[in-house]
């Protein structure tokens, strides 16, 4: 593949992710509204929101550090775009020869949106945003540990393959990892981390989108706010998709595609359901929750995976 094709592909895939991501945020809002006896917004609502924000004035607060304030959202967007590009490429072309990125790259890039939010929040020089940023930081520290452990489970199962395409091929030929106890536990961990990475209830202490004030984003307006919203929407698609790749063998091809989409939708439904049936968790409790329960589950999963590998028992 030459560079030009790659660049074009990158933009097409990023745009596609953004569109589908925005649609999924709509599903989320619609489900919430139906639970509350309301009709909810029309399907194009997230698009209208983003386009509208692009046309608004961008205000940089006096006390804010201007460069950091404006660059932060772009860092987040760049991170999530690259991740989605890598993941989609792996899904569509698992055996592709060109090296674009492996598991390690994805893990790093997925931290970028959270970092961007933290920088943005700190740069806006608003006490509320600072509180939000410090919470986001704590939360990121909290969920990264089990998240990495979850990936370790995948690595043990795959025999150390770091290539996403390799993981997909291996699962498509040798059965999905989730069809084992350790894989199932890893999936639970993955869903909870997804919830936190998406900043969804119960782990939305940092942003508190439903809580009206918006925390970190309180000082953002216009285009940078739109970029943050877009980043969030793309994460909505990308993070669950990453889990699908890691544990459920990707989307597949031909007749496998509807099934693959179903996998993603299943994960999304889990996320939306958790969001709608739980009140917000205090940040300390979120940290304790991730370092305690979730990490414990992840460690058990790792142990089982190692045991399964040693003894050659597939279902462990």
């Amino acid at each position: 593949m030459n560079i030009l094709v790659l660049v074009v592909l990158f933009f097409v895939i990023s745009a596609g992710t953004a569109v589908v991501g925005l649609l999924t945020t709509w599903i989320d809002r619609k489900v919430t509204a139906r639970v509350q006896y309301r009709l909810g917004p029309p399907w194009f609502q997230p698009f209208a929101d983003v386009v509208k924000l692009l046309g608004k004035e961008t205000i940089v607060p006096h006390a804010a550090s201007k460069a950091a304030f404006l660059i932060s959202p772009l860092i987040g967007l760049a991170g999530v775009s690259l991740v989605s590009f890598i993941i989609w490429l792996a899904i569509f072309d698992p055996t592709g020869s060109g090296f674009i990125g492996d598991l390690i790259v994805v893990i790093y890039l997925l931290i970028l949106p959270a970092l961007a939010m933290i920088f943005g929040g700190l740069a806006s020089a608003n006490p509320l945003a600072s509180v939000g940023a410090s919470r986001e930081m704590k939360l990121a520290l909290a969920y990264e540990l089990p998240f990495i452990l979850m990936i370790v489970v995948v690595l043990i199962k795959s025999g150390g393959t770091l290539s996403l395409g390799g993981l997909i091929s291996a699962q498509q030929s040798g059965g999905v990892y989730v069809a084992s106890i350790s894989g199932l536990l890893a999936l639970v961990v993955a869903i909870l981390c997804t919830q936190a990475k998406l900043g969804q209830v119960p782990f939305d202490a940092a942003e508190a989108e439903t809580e009206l004030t918006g925390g970190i984003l309180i000082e953002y307006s216009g285009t940078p706010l739109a970029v943050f919203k877009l980043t969030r929407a793309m994460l909505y698609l990308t993070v669950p998709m990453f889990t699908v790749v890691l544990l459920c063998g990707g989307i597949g091809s031909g007749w496998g595609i509807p099934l693959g989409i179903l996998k993603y939708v299943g994960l999304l439904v889990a996320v939306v359901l958790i969001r709608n049936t739980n009140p917000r968790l205090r940040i300390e409790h979120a940290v304790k929750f991730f370092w305690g329960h979730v990490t414990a589950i992840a460690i058990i999963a790792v142990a089982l995976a190692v045991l399964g590998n040693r003894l050659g028992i597939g279902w462990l």
Partner: protein
Amino acid sequence: MSLKIKALTKSPWVYHLCAGGSCNNCDIEILDCLTPRFDVERFGVTLIGSVRHADALLVSGIVTKKTAPLVKQIWEQAPKPCLVVAIGGCACSQGMFKDCYTANPVPLDELIPVHAYVPGCPPKPETMIAGIVKLLGSLTK
């Protein structure tokens, strides 16, 4: 009609600002607009908490001497284009509190620009929705 305006009419985020002297009824009717019977989220209207995200300020109540500087400051913090809707008789014309000794000598629409008036005491939620729809309609002309 530009895309920018079109998007604005489809996604007006509103910030609710009680200017001070009010009986609170307009404020409650504004909240009522969000609840199941009226559900303005159908039209993309969302009540937001940061004035930086606002496309429209819904102002209720008379401006008192004490709140006048705050009201002006909040208007200045809003990103433009931003619309101001005066909700209820007090915000439109100072209503019956015009002669109060705490009323700001300058009414709301001389303090900050007001783009639409929704009269009523309090205006019914339907009236508010109609007022906002009319205001948005006037943008697209």
